[in-house]
């Protein structure tokens, strides 16, 4: 049996990215009104974490990083 590892990796990236993105944005939503410097830093980092998850999803579905093959 010939397994295409790239497809498995992309599927894992999309599935994992959705889970991480949902968790990150939900945590951000829950912590939105928490005061204090450290909580503001956490919120910024959760936002960027969610952004990273979106990038991983877009890379997984070939929207980003889909470059033409060099001849």
């Amino acid at each position, binding site marked *: 049996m010939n397994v295409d590892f790239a497809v498995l*990796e992309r599927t894992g*990236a999309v599935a994992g990215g959705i*889970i991480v993105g949902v968790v990150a944005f939900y*945590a951000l939503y829950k912590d939105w009104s928490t005061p204090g410097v450290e909580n503001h830093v956490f919120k910024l980092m959760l936002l*960027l974490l969610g952004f*990273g998850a979106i*990038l*991983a999803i877009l*890379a997984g579905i070939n929207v980003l*990083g889909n470059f033409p093959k060099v001849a």
Partner: protein
Amino acid sequence: MAVASIAHGSAHGDGADQLYVETRELRLQGFLLFLVSDCVLFSSFIFAYLYLRNSGQGWPPPGIKRLDVAFAAWNSVLLFGSGATMHYALENWKHGNFMKYMWMLIFTIILGAGFLGGQAYEYTHLIVAEHVSWWGSGIFGASFFTLTGMHGFHVFVGVCYLTVLLLQSAAGVYTGQKYFGITAGTLYWHFVDVIWVVLFSIFYLI
């Protein structure tokens, strides 16, 4: 014992606890300054890489293939996932759920170690199969291995740090009011995640 410590705090050492509370903000500021300085370090390398990349005749240089986006995306999700588990480790600590905190911390360590394993696999593949190396592939190899290597070292330090946190937590070092080490660990781990968002974008997606 540790669970009881979370709920009720330390019964002795009130003077030390008072000092801890009074100096917590200072330590937080110091740690944030450390993260800012680390950010400056990464920024200088990143801007050097972008400058070199845009001063050549196309990227990657002739003879070097593009990096494997599919594998990098999968490996990135491992690291991003560890950021989420670390966040919930801290949340569970704050709410006194000791066992959930421990499990989340263990998942974070496993995912971080998994990311390092993925990076080791990618390095091996690049060096052995694609003949791309730090020392012999010009600007591409030098910038890729320097930046991702520096980040990988940060992840390795983070995994060691979180392992120490795990052992300290099991030994009852932290309490419900006294847990700056866990907060600092969470901040550091999020920082490592965020740096990877940038590196993943500039090396694999553009």
